[in-house]
């Protein structure tokens, strides 16, 4: 008798942008299928907004829209709990709550969820052990799961390295360069950061990404800028700014309303990073792009004016 292939749903939001290669490879290695929700569109945003508590951040609203799109389309939807990788290496508490949040929001849907827990500080579980546990819960052997994780992690790291190298090339190009400091799920979402980078390209500006740097080096450099910054991704972004602020003409602090870590870290950046124009841009769920474009246009003008090119 043929065994049914397990189908895992991956919502195209939040940690997907950080871990897509890791997740896809891991499940592929274990002989499972993955299905990814379609890129964010208006319907996904609307649906997520209706499902979320009003005050939740735009990123979570979009996330819930993606989960809703996958309900009934797969055996499991992957919603991990990623709390921290150690001291001062935490994620926003929202990444602790998402598995239970999704279970509660979709409890009448009959959909099954799959999770893994990374909590180095409290539970002493690192990523590898978490993936092994998850593999076991899907009926794989610990050995197979560990092997799949190792392959997947390697793929993830080399993918990130490639992207970093591509971005490093951008710094060598001629022309105005603007550093976008944002979480990857903000920077790469078509309904959030993508419209910013698209606009910049159209205006002849080269967008570069603060988080597209060697992560370990960035974590260390981030500490110089903010010694007690407790969020892993914020520290990477801080590190990216520290490493590249001399190479760019301006920095855009791009954040989804009302991002908890960004509300504080971006305030600190504007107070500590001097000598380069900074735009603090907060995106909310408004449907038009005119407001954002106006602000970007004036920011580019300010840079040109300061550089005597206007």
């Amino acid at each position, binding site marked *: 008798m043929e065994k049914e292939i397990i189908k895992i749903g991956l919502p195209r939001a939040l940690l997907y942008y950080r871990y897509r290669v890791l997740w896809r490879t891991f499940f592929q290695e274990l002989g499972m299928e993955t299905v990814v929700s379609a890129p964010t569109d208006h319907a996904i945003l609307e649906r997520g907004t209706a499902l979320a508590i009003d005050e939740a951040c735009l990123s979570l609203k979009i996330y819930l829209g993606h989960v809703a799109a996958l309900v009934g389309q797969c055996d499991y939807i992957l919603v991990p709990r990623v709390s921290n990788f150690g001291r001062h290496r935490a994620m926003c508490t929202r990444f602790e709550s998402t598995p239970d949040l999704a279970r509660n929001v979709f409890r009448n849907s009959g959909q099954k969820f799959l999770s893994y827990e990374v909590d180095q500080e409290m539970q002493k579980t690192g990523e590898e052990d978490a993936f092994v546990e998850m593999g076991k819960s899907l009926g794989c052997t610990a050995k197979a799961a560990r092997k799949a994780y190792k392959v997947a992690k390697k793929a993830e790291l080399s993918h990130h390295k490639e992207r970093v190298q591509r971005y490093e090339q951008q710094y060598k190009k001629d022309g105005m360069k603007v550093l976008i400091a944002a979480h990857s799920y903000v920077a790469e979402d078509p309904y959030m950061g993508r419209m910013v980078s698209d606009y910049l390209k159209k205006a002849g500006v080269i967008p570069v990404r603060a988080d597209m740097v060697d992560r370990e080096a960035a974590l260390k450099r981030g500490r110089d800028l903010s010694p007690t910054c407790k*969020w892993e991704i914020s520290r990477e972004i801080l590190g990216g700014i520290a490493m590249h602020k001399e190479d760019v003409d301006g920095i855009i602090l791009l954040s989804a309303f009302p991002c908890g870590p960004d509300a504080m870290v971006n305030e*600190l950046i504007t107070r500590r990073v001097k000598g380069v124009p900074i735009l603090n841009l907060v995106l909310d769920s408004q449907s038009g792009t005119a407001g954002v474009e106006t602000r970007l246009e004036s920011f580019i003008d300010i840079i040109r004016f300061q550089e005597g090119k206007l």
Partner: protein
Amino acid sequence: MAEVKKRSVSFPRYAEYSCAFKYIVEQALGCRYVMPPALTKRTMELGTKYSPDFVCTPFKTILGSMIESLEAGADTLLMTHGLCRLGYYGELLEQILRDLGYQFDFINLSDYDMSKKKEYIRILRRFDPKVNYARFLVQFMEGLRMVEYVDEVTGEYYKNCGFDATDGQYKRAYQDFLTAMYTAQNRGDVEAGYRAVKRSLQSIPLDKPQRPLRVGIVGEFYTAMDAFSNLEVEQKLADMGVEIHRWMNVTNQFLRYGSGQKNLRVKIQDLSVYDMGPTSTANIWYARECAERGYDGLIHIKSAACTPEIDVMPVLQNISADYKIPVLYLTYDAQTSDVGLMTRLEAFYDMIDMRKKVL
């Protein structure tokens, strides 16, 4: 030899715990304690003016309170670490205060790895390089005992104060107790104050119906417990004739359970498999507990933009649906008004009162 100048230490005002901070700073650390002035509208205005817009409200309250402490003569500010954004408060508070031009010494617990015992010694030495650890520990434990007394008495007070049959003796007894704690110099004072209030609270006649309205309070660790920040929601509701029950306090969250709330999670496995945030497990457990005990309503209290508590809300909505228990969700920001809150509380009271009569 000239005497070394004592530090004048201040810690942000927080519920009625300032008495214990004062006791610990003065008795255990041998420093002077600068009591932050009572929180007022001015505190909030100061805090809001200099804070980033969408930081959670306690940050704004604490920033305002720290400015007022510095104005009151503090030269050393202490800030805690924490599991949510609270853990980053310290660094940003210090930066904002320094940018404003204030001069002070800042002891930020987030600078230290609080899982290591020797770090505590480093912290203590900053207060007093010649600190006597044995003495410190004894006095510190007495300060914690004061915290336990304050929590116990406060719980008893809000459960009964709405049914005081006298001309306000119940409230006066509670306030006398707080005064005793704020002025205590030694263990004898603490114990005497506690005994006195226990005696009076038990002897003051109450006029309580056989089945009073009971409301459980859950929510964020700062706003749910700090009467100024929640506009005295507990007192307001109690005054309408309601028993107020709140599990959340320093004693229950830290002294009894510490970081291991595994046993609380046993009963809520179907609602939450993991910790969803620093206080989620306790809040979900207690909300279900209140629902199972047949309480008439729940109030969920949080500051605007409190991420962990926003994420607890879908679970509370499910508890509300499962047990048919009404939940009032209150979000406080720097603009929340007394009048608006009163209207919502009155409507909530009318609703739970009517339900009780019908059901």
